[in-house]
């Protein structure tokens, strides 16, 4: 399928929706070619290749009654039937003056570099070799790595086409590729899993299979002999991946959909100084080549850069057009076509390395991995199961696990006292490692 064909399908879906009785409509057609290979030891354990299409239509009728329809059945009769049913379904939805197509659609004018022919055209046999090479390297890296949950290479090439009844229509094509490895190490009757991955829009950006394997192997073995730490209040360094998970929680708190219904601890705090000087958080959909970049968002609004926290001060929430109208703001180009999503949402990196952060910590905890998920966005409470290292006199003294790290987001942001330089855009929500001056560690 070409961008033009995808756009024609989206445009015709909009026409069908209007014909079915909608006052306004928007259709997004996505078409993705996906490949995924997983190897274990010397065997290819999974080989998947498919093409997926789906159509997402939002319809509006009489004063903002709205219904969305998603379908993978693109036969015209089925689409027409689904759209008629949607118009009927909308009759019982409440009127809502804020529910409408966005006022101004468009696309970011600059070059975004979202497509890499080297990803789209790569030979399948080479991808299989990647997975097998990581399996070999991960076992060669450490004798304690005796097993694995697999090493994987995956890629996709996707077309997104969006059209609406205000006459907007545009499409773009993007690629994504990733490598990851999940070794299992065994020592003293205990098994431990490590995980490391690399991802990007461009093939050349990926870390080589050997790097992925050696980092994954290190993560599998480095926590052997871990102890449960004593319950205490200590400085905590969140390593890059774990720091990104904290940013995920912050993203929820600045999403206007949560702010509007009071499900955010930041709801009444716009303009307040909340974080330390080091907390500058940005959402930017216009960074060339990054995974969270795109020319327009899920409702056809041009992407842009939004300063969310500026040196600790909360400057903006993130909006789609609906919540922007509802809260008297302007959309920030964060629509997913039904919800609010991140573009590239990240904490500005600092100048010191992670090792320098550790070296400058007399006694504290380095968190390398967390499990669990916080659910209380309304109160801003953070609590996770964690594992990592106890830091003593600026060094990784010994591994620790089976503890929780807990705190309150407002206090955590205010206590950010060091940010590392290790930001990598391997997802749409990312963060460099950072240190929080004090949090509660619950152990024995």
């Amino acid at each position, binding site marked *: 399928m070409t961008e033009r064909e995808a756009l024609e399908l989206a445009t015709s879906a909009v026409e069908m929706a209007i014909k079915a009785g909608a006052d306004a409509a928007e259709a997004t057609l996505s078409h993705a070619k996906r490949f995924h290979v997983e190897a274990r030891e010397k*065997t*290819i354990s*999974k*080989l*998947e*290749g*498919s093409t*997926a*299409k*789906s159509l997402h239509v939002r319809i509006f009728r009489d004063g903002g009654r*709205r*219904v*969305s*329809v*998603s*379908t*993978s*059945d693109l036969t015209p009769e089925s689409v027409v039937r689904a759209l008629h*049913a949607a118009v*009927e*379904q909308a*009759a*019982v*939805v*409440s009127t*809502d003056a804020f529910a409408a197509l966005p006022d101004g659609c468009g696309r970011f004018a600059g070059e975004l570099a979202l497509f890499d022919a080297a990803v789209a055209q790569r030979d399948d046999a080479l991808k299989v070799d990647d997975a097998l090479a990581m399996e070999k390297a991960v076992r060669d890296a450490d004798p304690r790595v005796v*097993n694995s*949950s697999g090493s994987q290479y995956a890629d996709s090439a996707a077309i997104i086409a969006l059209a609406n009844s205000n006459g907007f229509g545009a499409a773009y094509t993007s690629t994504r590729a990733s490598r990851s490895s999940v070794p*299992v190490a065994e020592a003293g009757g205990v*098994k431990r*899993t490590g995980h490391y991955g690399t991802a990007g829009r461009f093939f050349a950006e990926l870390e080589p299979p050997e790097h992925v394997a050696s980092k994954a192997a290190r993560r599998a073995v480095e926590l052997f002999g871990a102890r*449960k730490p004593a*319950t*205490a209040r200590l400085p905590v360094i969140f390593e890059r991946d774990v720091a990104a998970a904290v940013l995920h929680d912050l993203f929820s708190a600045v999403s206007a959909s949560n702010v509007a*219904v*009071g*499900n955010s*601890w930041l709801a*009444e705090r716009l303009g307040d100084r909340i974080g330390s000087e080091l907390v500058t958080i940005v959402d930017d959909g216009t960074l060339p080549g990054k995974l969270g970049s795109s020319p327009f968002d899920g409702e056809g609004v041009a992407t842009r850069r939004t300063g969310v926290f500026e040196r600790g001060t909360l400057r903006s929430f993130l909006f789609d057009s609906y919540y922007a109208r509802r809260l008297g703001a302007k959309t920030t180009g964060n629509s997913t076509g*039904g919800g609010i999503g991140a573009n590239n949402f990240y904490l500005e990196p600092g100048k010191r390395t992670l090792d320098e952060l550790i070296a400058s910590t007399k006694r504290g905890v380095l968190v390398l991995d967390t*499990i*669990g*998920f*916080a*659910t*209380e966005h*309304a*109160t801003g*409470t953070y*609590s*996770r*199961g964690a594992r990592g290292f106890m830091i003593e006199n600026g060094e990784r003294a010994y591994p620790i696990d*089976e*503890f*929780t*790290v*807990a705190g309150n987001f407002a206090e955590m942001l205010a206590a950010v006292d060091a940010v590392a330089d290790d930001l990598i855009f391997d997802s749409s929500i990312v963060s460099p490692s950072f240190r929080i001056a004090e949090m*509660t560690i*619950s152990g*024995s």
Partner: protein
Amino acid sequence: MFDREIFERLLSRALRFGGDYADVFCERRRSYAFRLQDGKIHEGSSGITQGVGIRVVVGESAGYAYSDDLTIDALLHAADSASLIARSLPSGEERRVEVRASEIPKLYDETRGSHADASEYVALLSRADVAARAYDPRVAAVNAQVSDELQDVWIASSDGRFVHDHRPMVVLGVQAVAVRDGERASGYVGDGGRTSIAFYETHTPEALANDAARIAATNLEAIPAPAGEMEMVVGCGGGGVLLHEAVGHGLESDFNRRGTSLYSGRVGERVASELVTIYDDGNIPDQRGSVAVDDEGIPGQHKVLVERGVLRGYMQDTLNARLMGVAPTGSGRRQSFRFLPQPRMCNTYMPSGESTVDEIIASTKRGLYAKSFAGGQVEISKGDFVFMVAEGYLIEDGKITRPVKNATIVGNGPDAMTKVVAVGNDSALARGHYTCGKGGQHVPVGVGMPTVKISSITVGGTQND
């Protein structure tokens, strides 16, 4: 959706290079949903998920391809893509596969052909909204959603199986947010199962809304959870999330066949206190986690996972069962035709023991009463788990005292199960709203539990004493 000959043709084509096994999973799922916010019907949605997934298995390798385009050319192309896994095999001859349609057990309402009238769903949401606000004046916001889904699956395999299952699923969820002096707290409950919205005539939206509002109001009064090791009493019903995470995932056969679970190779060994018995049951009528047949066409079963502390068996899909030389247990499940099946839980629960709830509480000097969990996660190889407590209370000198908020429980599966020192006589299945995630795939599950006491667990609160 297609006749038998099409399935046979696809299976034969998929095995053109050989292979041990092939199957075709064809799905058409229709969903219908509404969401309420601010006392209004905020939006409606509907969806159709339709497509075919074709798998070829060679030893421990699986080739997979799916197509949402149902033309015969597109489906044959998918069969060809799936067959590539067997490309290097010597045989290279297309073989003729025949399948025979078989009847499957009746486990839920299979007669319903479509969703109910839109007004009925809207009425359920409005009733929940009114009830939650009426329960406590501090309830400032109510969010609720209802969805109704009908999934038809047709599954054919190279060993001759050909089945059709028609699976209904309803769920109604209510979140209440209570506010006092700028402080916020929320409560969420959901209920449903493989049935129709007639379910809510007896499981009323008012009952759900009252519970959501009660939890929100209770959490407004809650003090920060204590931090450190203490006794824990897990509430009946929703406490079953503990079994799901602490034991269940570790007994899925993919991890055990590969030797990556801490339970690998331990069938017949003691893995828990002898008070602990755990079942996984795909056959409970109308339950959210039930399957008349799983997503490989194997009938759902009642499985004994742990019996009086001894590990009895794993949950098996066809691939891992074949490699381990045992029978599949009806545990092969997938999110949709876009995914390979995985061994998964259905309804996981512990039967009743001997103790009364009063005895269990009275025997606890200082501990946490975790009445329900908001969710959890486990790390398979070592067995470390985490749970978020949705509704929790302190137990002081044998009495339930103050509510606590934001408690997280952290522990290790076999360690916690060995520390089970009392099992209540009140086993119950939790309300049906749980969804389990594994390897990027989400499937509906059920959990159940009597009141259970664990002698020591780490509570990750913020109150350090």
